[in-house]
């Protein structure tokens, strides 16, 4: 097999990093989500889907790194149903070189968890050997915020999550990542290979325009199955029920401060 070696001491001079970008097909953020009548989940059939917004940012970052010559090749990967191909086509239209689709049969799709996805990604990383994996920080359908971190642990790679800026470090041997944390911004240097997850302010993704969509049709899209990767998709969690949030009760308007105090007293909140 052709073994890919990166000379860590000479990153800037080499032909650039190889980046693997994760994309997830989720219900479009503007869609009004509906709970299924049997409370087992939300309605997904016939509903508009699109690429997870944080993944769009990840794809954009990979393409920008290619344009800045920091990266040589960008590969997109999606774990999902047959329709995830459309998501990958969008990534290809944005500038990704090729795509990998790990197809999950519909029966197992609903029970797919970040632990499974990170194991699948880890297996692909073994053969693809990227220098950098960029994932969205979380998916807007489950809001788990786990896949990137789990992947780093499985691969035993350093991780830089909630990235708002990625650039080469001062000595060009590592990556300098600025992270958005509760207290503000934290800047760390990570050595490659590493896992980075994108946050909102990393960049503003470009539009996939028609000429690029047409070109993307010719780019390679490979298909794999979890069995081929040897990953067991046995669910670790069971969803008991999914419910609508409680209906917001109407508020009451008061005309003066005295009224407000009176109302608070009525409710026993103020003595």
């Amino acid at each position: 097999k052709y073994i890919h070696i990166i000379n860590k001491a000479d990153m800037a001079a080499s032909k650039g990093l190889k980046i693997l970008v994760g994309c997830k097909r989720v219900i479009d953020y503007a869609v009004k989500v509906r709970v299924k009548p049997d409370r087992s989940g939300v309605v997904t059939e016939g509903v508009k889907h699109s690429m997870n917004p944080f993944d769009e940012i990840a794809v954009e970052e990979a393409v920008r790194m290619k344009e800045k010559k920091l990266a040589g090749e960008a590969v997109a990967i999606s774990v999902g149903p047959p329709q995830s191909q459309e998501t990958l086509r969008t990534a290809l239209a944005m500038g990704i070189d090729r795509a990998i689709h790990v197809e999950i049969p519909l029966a197992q799709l609903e029970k797919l968890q970040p632990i499974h996805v990170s194991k699948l990604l880890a297996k692909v990383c073994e053969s693809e050997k990227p220098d950098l994996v960029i994932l969205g920080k979380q998916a807007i359908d489950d809001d788990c915020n786990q896949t990137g971190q789990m992947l780093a642990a499985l691969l035993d790679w350093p991780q830089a999550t909630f990235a708002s800026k990625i650039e080469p470090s001062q000595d060009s041997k590592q990556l300098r990542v600025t992270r958005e944390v509760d207290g503000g911004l934290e800047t760390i240097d990570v050595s490659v290979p590493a896992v980075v997850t994108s946050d909102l302010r990393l960049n503003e993704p470009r539009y996939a325009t028609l000429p690029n969509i047409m070109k993307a049709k010719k780019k390679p899209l490979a298909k794999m199955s979890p069995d081929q990767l040897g990953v067991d998709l046995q669910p670790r969690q069971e969803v008991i029920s999914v419910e609508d949030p409680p209906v917001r009760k109407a508020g009451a308007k008061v005309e003066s401060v005295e009224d407000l105090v009176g109302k608070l007293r009525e409710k026993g909140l103020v003595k």
Partner: protein
Amino acid sequence: MLSSSRAALVAAAAKLPRLVTRYGYCTTAAGERQQQKPLSPKITTHPTRNDRAKDPRWKDIDMTRAADEADVVIVGGGPAGLSAACRLAQLNAEKGTEMRIVVLEKASSVGAHIMSGACLDPKGLVELFPDWQERGAPLHTPVTGDKFYMLTEKRAIPLPLLPGMPMHNHGNYIVRLGNVVAWLGEQAESLGVEVYPGVAAAEVLYTEDGSAVKGVATNDVGIAKDGSPKDSFERGMEFHCKQLIIAEGTHGHLAKHLINRYDLRAGREPQTYGIGFKELWELSEDRWRPGYVEHGVGWPLDSGTYGGYFIYHLNEGSPLAAVGFVVGLDYSNPYLSPFHEFQQFKHHPHVAAALTGGKRIGYGARALNEGGVQSLPKLTFPGGCLVGCTAGMINVPKVKGTHNAMKSGSLAAEAVHEAIGSGEIEPATYEEALRNSWVYKELHSVRNIRPSFHLLNGRLGMFGGMAYTGAVWYFTRGREPWTFSHGGTDHEKLLPAKDCKPKDYPKPDNVLSFDLLSSVALTSTNHDHDQPPHLTLYDDSVPGQVNLSVYDGPEQRFCPAGVYEYVELDDGSKRLQINAQNCIHCKTCDIKDPTQNINWVTPQGGEGPAYNGILIMTTELQKSPQVDMKGFLLRYETFKGRSGWKKRWAVLCDFCLYLYKEQTSKECFYALLLPNSRVTQSHDSSGQYRSSI
């Protein structure tokens, strides 16, 4: 006087750092710009109204467009457009000609802008695809019962539905039209048509001498709300074609432009319209009657306002029903709000009986054409033609237009195919073919029903219309020698507010009736907030000067999505605010604006509502995997300590090499992603070539 109030407006706007309304729409950019150009409150920043060649912010931007060639470009992926595409592909297969057919659809996926829930006459579909059932067209609910009611405030009076009456629905299907359109899109793709959803056709291109149409250009992306270029700016691309088919639906914006340019309405009446609302309800099981179709007229519309309702019970597994309401846009009272009439209608005891216990799961609205044959424009122009609702082929009393749209698409395809073959610029045979078809016969026979509503100056209103239908039309079936006129455009019929009584609508109860904003949320509509509003005004000062002062801002009431809002500023004056993000592409504002100052243009492709009822396009994906190559390969393997070359069955597919233990094995035991690997050749002593991967 006016300039001093303008100055006050400007001063007030300059003081406001941020104006955020309950819609969350920011006018900061507008406020800041006031300081630079204090002479007019700038609402319209769209490039169609602001020449970028004169704008210093666009000085260094490269405005060249990539161009591509196609034989036929079809704008709009609805029933008419896709029928035209399929028919063209069929003709090519029959006659052995080759054509590149491109369909451009502004919705993010085919069918997403189609308001679902229709009663379809399968005539048009059967002619296009006689084997539609085998092909799996989603027509699952044949009509089993049919009723017509006249609603008074408390009662519902059933009226007889005799066979032959336009409202008689035997033989028709209740469908989710978005699903049917998505299926049509799949058929088109399988026939070799290129269908591009998420692409809006924004501009018509003309030949050098300007006489003929040579193609379309798609929309630019990446323009900021204030009209300046963003980093992500990219110019649209051009499609040059031999024939352009416009299938944009009722009151399409390119159609409007072409009709004006080629004066296609000369000698014909202007188009008249209605606004149609539709809600999808999940009924309680005991009230669900699959296959049942109900139409009606009356309360709460007053006798002077044309309109009616429908309720279609679907039969696709779950107890769904489509509840619809149409209000003719020739109403005269600017205080009328079609949306609120619809919400009030659901409280009628007869309707409430059906809906109680149910849950509303969808909402949408769209303008529909009501002009019939009187309002059909000339259908062809040099370089193309108009099909479907864009021209206006709805059979109004039947409330059906899809079958006509599909037929017109097929006829246009035949004319276009002929024109390309003979080198003619205008597909002139299309109009004659349509006149000789059942579409025209049908529209001609019902041409007097809608305008009969205006009999005796509209004093009899709905009663007049129904009396005419029952007494005259039922016997003459349109053979009467006279043709009623519609009496002018819809927007001219609006009276000044001072001559009309304000209407008091009841508050929504959130069980049967709902407020506007939660309804708009159900359409899942969305637009990139940072782009120029696509509801453009020819003159930014007109809303304040005319619409508000004379007509009390009727756009606040006829827009079914709450796009237009008159917000009060600090100094007490009112300013029009356009919440373009809410737009659901219904086109009512472009139709009913009394001053015709509003010009709807297309926003960026892929935006707008996302109506459910959309089948996931799976033909491309469910195709059996395309095997590129297969054969035997020798693989060097190590097993239990012993190494050697083993013959394995290899299959190359989708850039992946799959190895099987035997040719007959069902599962592969090894898969190799080829793009990741390199092939090196080695030459061994036996003279065989080997490759290492």
